[in-house]
């Protein structure tokens, strides 16, 4: 009984470690194959269109509504302490430091990550990847690398758009609906938000999340079992593992960047 339990625990840890090792190996293969991408920017720009442009609407709309809500809720809390004029600062800091990168990465995992996993999983199920290898084309260089770099490029841009639209949303609610003075809204924001500490660190966060989410999506697709059910499971795992990784990494990065 106890022996069985121990064996199962040991087995799952062994599987986890070997998965981790395999993922790390795939990551290095991907990086090594990335040199060729420079010669084929066409492939990357196609994928930027597929990953970035198609996510634009959902990111912009979510950013707008998150900004609205931050404006309303922030005003409620701040007015208790009689400091409504700090609303702009609160909205801008929460968006650039946390919400922009994190929510964009979560949406990105749901919107772009799943489609990457499903696409590559189906390529595998249809034996297209094997066919490529038989033709002497490395599928890591031809299929994975352009998608990876497109994700890494698109994610920070999307996070920037999210934060910018969110700030405008907060401005609309705070200034036009509630009636906070527009001048103090912007000047408090500009006083309190530091370009390198807040916006720069938020940008670094979004790059890290872009790398993590895109890689997880590609890896899950690449490792999917070549059946319809296998592709379905891989897509689910992309969202679950991707979201958890983003939240865990966010805690780590926040602790490193802002815990002075």
């Amino acid at each position: 009984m106890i022996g069985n339990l121990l064996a199962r625990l040991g087995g799952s840890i062994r599987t986890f470690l070997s998965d981790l090792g395999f993922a790390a190996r795939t990551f290095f293969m991907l990086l090594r194959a990335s040199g060729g991408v420079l010669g084929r920017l066409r492939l990357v720009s196609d994928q930027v269109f597929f990953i970035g442009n198609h996510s634009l609407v959902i990111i912009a709309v979510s950013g707008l509504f998150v900004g609205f809500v931050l404006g309303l809720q922030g005003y409620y809390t701040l007015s208790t302490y009689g400091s409504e004029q700090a609303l702009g600062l609160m909205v801008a800091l929460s968006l650039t430091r946390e919400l922009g990168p994190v929510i964009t990465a979560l949406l990105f995992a749901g919107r772009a990550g799943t489609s990457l996993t499903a696409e590559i999983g189906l390529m595998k199920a249809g034996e297209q990847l094997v066919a490529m290898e038989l033709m002497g084309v490395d599928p890591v260089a031809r299929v994975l690398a352009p998608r990876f770099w497109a994700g890494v490029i698109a994610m920070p841009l999307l996070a920037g758009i999210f934060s910018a639209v969110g700030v405008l949303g907060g401005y609309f609610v705070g200034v036009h609906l509630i009636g906070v003075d527009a001048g103090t809204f912007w000047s408090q924001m500009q006083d309190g938000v530091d370009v390198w500490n807040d916006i720069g660190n938020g940008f670094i966060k979004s790059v890290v999340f872009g790398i993590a989410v895109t890689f997880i999506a590609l890896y899950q697709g690449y490792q999917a079992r070549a059946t319809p059910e296998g592709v379905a499971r891989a897509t689910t795992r992309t969202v679950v593992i991707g979201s958890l990784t983003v939240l865990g990494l966010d805690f780590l990065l926040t602790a490193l960047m802002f815990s002075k």
Partner: protein
Amino acid sequence: MQRRTLDIWVGLFVVLGFLALLFLALQAGNLGAISFEKTYRVTARFDNIGGLKPRAPVKSAGVVVGRVEDITLDGQTFQALVTLKLQRSFLFPKDTSAKILTAGLLGEQYIGLEPGGDSVNLASGERIRMTQSAIVLENLIGQILFSKVAEGDGGADK
């Protein structure tokens, strides 16, 4: 043609992303306030800096003329050593005095410079001699209470 429309859309997306980052940096952040004007550094010693923080403004007659760059404790005199970064275009006489003031009753603290009458100006790396520490509210209340008690005692002696 198909190729071209696709490229245009990708280009638009990238431009939009960079515009958003630029908007954040300029409108939400303080990139516009970072001047590339030349600056010079002067130091000042204070007995107590209160709640002064690095990057706090340095004002003269209410106009921002620089920022607090660094605050350390001098191990010998146990005074706070504050480094100020002032804009090159504003020169102050050698006998300028520095005070730590508060914006409003509970607002942020800043350094106020009051120019003296010396004909020689402060140069880079020099020290402002005359300083006045921050007013710590607790000490002030303590003094008032103490003086009230002392007054009370005086009355009882009569």
